[in-house]
């Protein structure tokens, strides 16, 4: 690359002549088209005007005669090099401008989610037993997410053991716990700091808020009978256990700092083998 240099001067700048031909042709064409909805005479007049425009246009297309010299004009202000210098953005190693180099194993998220789900269930069932004298109340309420007829059951029916309720309730708890646990495992390495605070407090509170806003649509039965204090406590218990389990797991490195060839698995002299330490 060479330094920028001057170009040669342009001794003769020529520009196309102004002409009415395009306007006349366009006007004739529009009239011709307008004749379809007005009168055939309009169309014929338009046709004639368009023809005249085209003929003149063709005549002006001769490059020898219809160029005109540029009109003299003021010169632009010369561009002066700056004296204030250039400030460069300094890459700060503490700034999270990249994906994490090490993450928690997905298995930690799954196991953490399962453990958190168990503790959460214990808290919820404990509340059910203490406040309502029934082991099955919260399970049946949860099952109402999928079993729409539970929304019409009386409180006494919800206190009672129901096979469908226990199967569906456990399934929901299992699937949700594993899914959210997995999500925790993926998201937590991306958080800048205070991982346990996010896991134990902030995310359960956000989840509770989302549930509060949508519960009447998702689960009318739960919406009618829910105790929000205990709901939040059970969510936080899930967050504490799941977050704690994930944080204590040993991180595994990702391929983010690998060379492109290494990621492709190319094995050649000078290229490290996949996962090999530098």
């Amino acid at each position, binding site marked *: *690359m060479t*330094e*920028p*240099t*001057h*170009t*040669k*001067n*342009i*001794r*003769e*700048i020529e*520009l*196309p*002549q*102004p*002409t*009415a*031909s*395009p*306007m006349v*042709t*366009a*006007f004739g*064409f*529009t009239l011709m*088209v*307008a004749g*379809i*909805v*007005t009168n055939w005479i309009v169309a014929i007049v338009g046709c004639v005007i368009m023809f005249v425009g085209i003929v003149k*246009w063709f005549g*002006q*297309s001769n490059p020898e005669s219809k160029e005109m010299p*540029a*009109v*003299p*004009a*003021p*010169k*632009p*202000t*010369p*561009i*002066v*090099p*700056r004296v204030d*210098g*250039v400030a460069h*953005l300094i890459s700060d190693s503490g700034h999270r401008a990249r994906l994490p180099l090490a993450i928690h194993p997905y298995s930690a998220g799954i196991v953490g989610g399962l453990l958190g789900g168990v503790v959460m269930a214990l808290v919820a069932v404990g509340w059910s037993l203490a406040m309502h004298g029934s082991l099955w109340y919260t399970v049946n309420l949860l099952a109402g997410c999928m079993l729409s007829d539970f929304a019409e059951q009386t409180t006494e029916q919800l206190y009672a053991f129901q096979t469908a309720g226990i199967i569906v309730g456990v399934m929901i708890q299992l699937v949700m716990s594993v899914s959210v646990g997995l999500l925790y495992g993926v998201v937590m390495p991306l958080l800048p700091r205070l991982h346990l605070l996010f896991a134990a407090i902030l995310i359960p509170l956000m989840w509770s808020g989302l549930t509060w806003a949508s519960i009447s649509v998702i689960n009318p039965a739960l919406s009618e009978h829910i105790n929000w204090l205990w709901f939040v406590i059970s969510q936080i218990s899930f967050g504490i256990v799941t977050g704690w389990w994930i944080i204590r797991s040993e991180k595994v490195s990702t391929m983010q700092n690998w060379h492109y060839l290494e990621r492709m698995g190319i094995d050649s002299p000078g290229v490290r083998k996949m996962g090999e330490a530098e």
Partner: protein
Amino acid sequence: MRLAGDSEVSTLETPIGPATGRPPFLSQLHEWVTTVDHKKLGSMYVVCGIIYMIIAGLEASMMRWQLAWPGQTVLTPEEFNRLFTMHGTTMVFFVGMPILLGSANIMIPLMIGARDLAFPRLNAFGFWLFLFGSILLYFSYFGGQGLYGMGSAPDVGWFAYAPLTERTYSRGHSTDYWILGIFVAGIGSTATGINFIATILGMRCRGMTLMKMPLFVWIMLVDAILIVIALPPLAAAQIMLLFDRLLGAHFFDAQAGGSALLWQNLFWFFGHPEVYILILPAFAYVTEIIPVFSRKVIFGYPLMVAATVAIGFISLGVWVHHMFSVGLSPLINAIFMASTMLVGVPTGIKMFNWTATMIGGKIRFDTPMLFSIGFLCQFLMGGLTGIFLATVPFDWQVSDSYFVVGHFHYVLFGGLIFGILAATFYWYPKVTGRMMSETLGKWQFWLLIIGFNMTFGAMHVSGLLGMPRRIYTYQTERGWDLWNLLTSIGVIFQIAAFTLFAINLLHSAFKGRRAGDDPWDAWTLEWSTTSPPPAHNFDEDPVVYSRRPLWDLKHPEDPDWKYE
């Protein structure tokens, strides 16, 4: 390109001074009518677009007056139908299109260091076809009654669905005017699109390889290709419709063996790329403005190019999402749902790159930047509701409701119009030689932010509450009263904002502060020539070595070409 101290290199003669005087009015008029100068033609496009924006805005305001309260009788149902048809048609074909063509007309040759477009006379032909086509459409208010004594302006919606447009349902000539007006203007747009492609591919200055072109030019290249691909199918469909109406053909007449769905396919094969044809220039504007006002180079230039090309390509394969509710097979719906969601990926890349450009920059919150940030926020919201609507079950629920109206106004008003306003404040000094008022600009920005979000945000709610679009009134017990009132109150703020804009445009043209050649300390070639530029643009053919040629000249100790 001229450097400091390079004072006597021009071969041109002594500049004309102010003492030469202003030519008589008729001479000036003749000069404008016969011009083939890309800057003058571009300016005429933009001025016409702004005039039509005022007209379309008044049409929308009348509709909002009618809908402000339930049971109003400001407009008759027929008048209401004409107004929403003319508003939509005008905004798409006679506001969005001319302003994008006009801005590209002015800027492409200046940015690539050319003296004009490749075919200057074809360029003039394109402009005049646009203007006469638009006049033909509005002539329908006078001529639309035709032989049958029925109709006035078109009343079939801007997409003119069959069989509503067939002779049986649309008597008189109003629909014919809609067909012919857009047909004529469309030919002009296609000619201009071809001109842009030829200019960009064949007339770049020395050193400006494709990967050194300003992103504005890249985006306009993709836009021009979309114009050339998308507009001919519309013209074909319009000719078929004209055959149906005037010659007794049955292309779209289902009772006679035609297909109303055929029109929808043909129209939306044009219509959805058209949305991108309109929004891509807004991308082009903010892509130039954000780096200059962040004092940073654009983040991820190659990826921005790739995303632009990807958007252009994908946009040709999403049109059926306008037809989810017509009863197509689940497989077709699923394919077009996926393709529609796919277009969010390159668009998302652009959003991230604009944001990344701002991060760490020394941001100047001048009016062009304010409107660019407004664009980012509001276009994002329009994009997100677009993802909702791409989901077939959701689309079924809200199809043809005010939710859809709110969505596309966030895209086309919050996106395109905010982009146009940003571009106007940014390039007005280059075109006129004078600065627009920053104070008025900021007042306009905040009034418009309030009015825009009040109007179109509330539309989402009334849509979710079940209010269908295109109804001329409603009953009070529907629960839509508050949201419609809010929508209409927002229009008052918008009128105030655009009044300030008009005052600013006119006042600044005569009394604005002198801009100088490079008022924003920018980096692309148009800022190296005078404001306004001379007819020949540059005294010397520029040579560029990087994507920011003016940066290289201003910072010879750290030029971009060392890094690219």
